[in-house]
């Protein structure tokens, strides 16, 4: 099983390795959800959904189902 953004905990970071799933909105890719960029999970709404992220210097919120499509490698600090 791959690790995805949905697996991150509050405050954790990861590097995107794959965001080529059909169901990821193009808008998200254009905002910087692209392989190689760092994702920082800033905050979670109740039930961990939606998720508030910083990717590629953009601050955005996406739903968990979308977050689960973006594959990452965790960055340990």
């Amino acid at each position, binding site marked *: 099983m791959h690790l995805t953004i949905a697996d991150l905990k509050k405050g954790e970071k990861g590097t995107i390795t794959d965001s080529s799933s059909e169901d990821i909105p*193009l808008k998200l890719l254009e905002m910087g959800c*692209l392989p190689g960029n760092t994702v920082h999970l800033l905050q979670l709404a109740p039930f961990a*959904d939606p998720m508030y992220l910083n990717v590629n210097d953009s601050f955005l919120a996406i739903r968990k189902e979308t977050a689960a499509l973006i594959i990452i490698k965790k960055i340990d600090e």
Partner: protein
Amino acid sequence: MSKQINVALIGNPNTGKTSVFNALTGLNQKVGNYPGITVDKKQGICKLSRGVKAHILDLPGTYSLNASSLDENVVIELLLNKNDKDYPDVAIIVSDVENLKRNLLLFTQIKDLKIPTILVINMSDLMNRKGISLDIELLEAKLHTKIALVSTRKNNGIQELKQLIENYKTISKETCLDTSSIDTAYFESLQKAFPNQDVYKLWLVITQDANFGKITRQELDISKFKTKSNQELKRLQQKEAIKRYQFINSILKEGQTIDRSKATGLRSKLDRLLIHKVWGYVIFFWILLTIFQAIYDWATVPMDLIDTTFASLAEWVKNTFPNGGMVTDLVAEGIVSGIGGIVIFIPQIAFLFLFISILEESGYMSRVVFLMDRIMRRFGLSGKSLVPLISGTACAIPAVMATRNIENWKERLITILVVPFTTCSARLPVYLIIIALVIPEGSIIGLSYQALTLMALYLLGFGMAIFSAYILDRVLKTRHKTFFVVEMPNYKLPLLKNVIITVIEKTKTFVFEAGKIILAISIILWVLASYGPGDKFNNAEAYIEPTTQTSYERNDQIAAFKLEHSYIGIIGKTIEPLIKPLGYDWKVGIGLVASFAAREVFVGTLATIYSVGSANEGENIDTIKNKMQNETYADGTKVFTLASGISLLLFYAFAMQCMSTLAIVKRETKSWKWPILQLIGMTAIAYICALIAFQFLK
């Protein structure tokens, strides 16, 4: 006319594009519609030196040239169509100094269409505080553009920008990327098939067809050229984004330095509080209460003023113009009071949009969307449905228009369909009089029964909206795809100028959109109430015995008798069998019919029916109340009892009685199917609930 430069203002949302537009044009702007679609078209004139004028078009905010909403599609259609009269001589890309990287994606796309492009870097006053420094000369050279550092907040850089617009011809048309490197073979075959066209433009047309559906105003037919599946196209679009970011990163590496230690923690501090799992909701509901307070308390002062002004205006018309003429009556009773019925809502609408635009400008609204999305989604709505539902408590019309930024069509449709259940301000006068009539005075733990009933009606409206959304979510079958991406912008102090312009603009839209319908129906209703067949209408004076009444009372009785035998009275009597099971008589029926102009007309209509004429001015409400209280059926039972009162309250809470809303829904959904469904569905729910309530309480 002197020479005019066509300028298109383009940029990501939240970059202060509208502030730049306002700074360039001032109040010299107007809002219209793009032909055939409902996206606002904002344009203005900017005076440059030597009599040269720039025609500035403020295009909807977009993150790229790949549209996922109607608004964004407008930008692409314009830029792909050289024959459009608004096709820009020069494009201005507004970017935000803190999000330069992401903003430049759109910039490079537009550059690659070979349109001369100026880059505005807005909010430049924040550079020092955020530790950002830019090598403007280098950026200009590498991006083949001219850059204007602007701060709309400090009013800096606008003059420089105007000069750049004036000298647009000197701006290079060099592209940023070699776009054919996205897929060399494919782009070559594209070029071969359409040798006279720019290849990047062709690519955009093709991907646009795949993304969002056909481009409507396209002069070139590309549909036959389809050699790649949508999946492959999307992969290529991702590749394009990657390539663009590579290019941008390589330039920013040299041209931009950011000292991260200087970044202030305002965002994270405020976020910790405003989207806190408990405090976030507490603060949000406190803000909601303030908004309601403003709409229902503060707005009453100007509303009362408007009410009395229009009443005396109608009176003045009657007394000044030739007496008894049809035209005089039409003006006084149809037109003046019709316009009054529109103007009366302006204070509430203006207050509502004052709050909404402050919340939006400050960046708080996105946090609310974040907080509420999960809860709303359970009911088939989106976090973005919240603003429309709140707006609905003032008026459903701006609320329906406020659904435009919900990308997911199903969520947007459901929001539009359920918004009219929220208690709009037109219901309030009806509620107040019926509550005063049937709910006993007295209180429980310091809260009066009457106030509690009113609150219950508000909750009922919201509850019904949510409940029907839940049902619709299960019934409506559409391809469900998540498009929920919300940018969380920086917090900033709202600019007064922007807030004021938004309030004026939204209020104007309401007045003209809803206004013309309300006015038209007012006139129709006036005709129906002022004419009738037969002798009883035309010779009413003969039927009222001149007995002991004063002449005022006699006139009122004649008016009531006339109304009974007018066309609208006949309609009321015709529908009586239908509404009898709900506990209403034909007089209430007339009120229900009249409510199609606007619900609050109910009160005025009943005033006429119960012959409360102008004689009793000042104490109108009390007088109507007394008359209604004493109203009985032939057998002596009262018309307005607790049962019929509750039944009427429920009917008004649920029924779709507002023609203006239906017209707006038709416009926004581009089909009669949905407003008709709304009309039938809501009215059926209202009928059934009122029926059950009356039969049960009777």
